[in-house]
């Protein structure tokens, strides 16, 4: 690894300082607010709220919905970023813009469109009812809404990375006789792994935290179709402030766990690289 250009210590200090001040005001103080509310009545009440059967079932459901949505969007993200960055075709900007759209749709509307499609008064509603298929107010509907809301994350994360990589490496591999899949796994994937990882992490965080859209399609049945954010909302609305924040802090903790996994994998690849260099 070549040494990066190091600006004078002062500039560096100022930049770090400015970044930390911003983070402090916008992220760290609110985060502390969440934990201080959660622990207001002591650690025992905190543990009690988190161990509540409904809370546990909400955690399970959240993990399930997030796992399905993230994997669907990851597959989509890789395929689409490949199509967009490795080929020239007309209407590319239009396609990218359409992919971005779910972000601009208000969460309430994101839920509502699925209700309009699959709900009892919706277009497919009567047919679904006749065949006894439940989509809305059940897990499939919640997955759909989450997939919709987190749709652009992985693709959008990959496009700039793949763009920056260019396509010479793939072309070289292919002209040397490597197969398409082989080229992807051996050449492309290692190059885009950081982008992919960030995309998956963001997608996952958002999938677990989504409230508005999921709220519309969930039906809020306790212990069955309540995700963590919905459970938090209900606790809050029934004047159970401490429990609400305790359960919310679980989401923060889950986010931090994904971070640790990310750091570990970063560290591990770094070590592997170093080991490879030493061997040489």
């Amino acid at each position: 690894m070549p040494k990066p250009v190091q600006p004078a210590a002062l500039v560096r200090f100022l930049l770090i300082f400015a970044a930390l001040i911003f983070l402090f005001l916008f992220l760290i103080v609110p985060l502390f607010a969440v934990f201080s509310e959660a622990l207001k009545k002591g650690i025992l009440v905190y543990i009690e709220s988190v161990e509540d059967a409904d809370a546990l079932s909400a955690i399970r459901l959240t993990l399930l919905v997030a796992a399905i949505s993230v994997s669907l969007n990851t597959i989509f993200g890789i395929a689409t970023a490949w199509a967009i960055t490795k080929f020239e075709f007309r209407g590319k900007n239009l396609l990218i813009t359409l992919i971005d759209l779910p972000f601009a749709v208000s969460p309430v509307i994101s839920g509502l469109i699925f209700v309009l499609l699959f709900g009892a008064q919706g277009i497919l509603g009567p047919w679904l009812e006749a065949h006894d298929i439940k989509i809305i107010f059940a897990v499939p509907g919640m997955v759909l809404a989450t997939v919709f809301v987190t749709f652009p994350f992985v693709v959008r994360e990959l496009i700039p990375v793949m763009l920056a990589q260019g396509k010479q490496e793939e072309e070289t591999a292919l002209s040397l006789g490597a197969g398409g899949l082989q080229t992807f796994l051996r050449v492309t994937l290692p190059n885009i792994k950081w982008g992919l990882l960030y995309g998956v992490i963001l997608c996952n965080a958002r999938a677990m935290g989504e409230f508005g859209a999921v709220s519309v399609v969930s039906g809020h049945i306790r212990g069955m179709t309540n995700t963590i954010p919905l459970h938090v909302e209900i606790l809050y609305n029934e004047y159970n402030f401490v429990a609400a924040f305790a359960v919310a802090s679980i989401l923060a903790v889950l986010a931090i766990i994904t971070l640790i996994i990310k750091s570990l994998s970063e560290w591990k690849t770094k070590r592997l690289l170093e080991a490879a260099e030493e061997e040489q």
Partner: protein
Amino acid sequence: MAKRLAKKSIIPGFGLTMGYTLVYLSLIVLIPLSLIFYKTASLSWKEYWDVVTDPRVIASYRLTFGASFVASVINAVFGTLIAWVLVRYDFIGKRLVDGIVDLPFALPTAVAGIALTSVYSDNGWIGKFLAPLGIKVAFTPLGVIVALTFIGFPFVVRTIQPVLQDLDHQLEEAAFSLGASRLQTFVRVLFPPLLPALLTGFALAFARALGEYGSVIFISGNMPMVTEVTPLLIVTKLEQYDYAGATAIASVVLIASFILLFIINCLQWVSGRRYFIG
């Protein structure tokens, strides 16, 4: 058919990936979104016009688009800074900082809204120091900007970070050793390859801010004509079981953000091209 759209390339998989993209995009996004227009179509033109040009709705567009724009500009500036600091410098607690960047996505928006309000209201940890200066954050448009900055924050950082990580240090070193100043190096050498990612981050943060509901309603105070955001008016319509009115307002936001995003994406592609191909 799909093959003819693309210029000849030796890279395989265009038909497969493009076909899959289009099918998935249609099923998950386009067909459901078209229902907004389907439902809106039950209104006559006059009804539609009356709903979307109501003075209160117009005031809410102004707030929503204005606050979203300001918030995403703030995020673009500080997001770049933070991505830079995280990638290029080492300092104590860096890993932790790196981790909490994603926090705004993980926290349910309502919790974020309540936490921000409690921090920025006149008796809150930060609001306490701002109040004597005459700065009111909670329950004013400023509060809306704070909430929208919060929820869109990870976008810019996370789009710039991977590009910066992959960027070759040699370029900067070369520029540096050829006598370019630090600022010149940044503007001429580093900025161009970062621009597409920066624009992506900006566009995403902006789009996300336009639709945000959960966190904003707690900090905005929801005063008609002053601090009502457009998504709140959509919810108001739903409360009256007026689905068509709700989708009518949603359609306006959707079309406006589609146009804005399209422009940003074109810019991004142009800027990316100039650097990579030109």
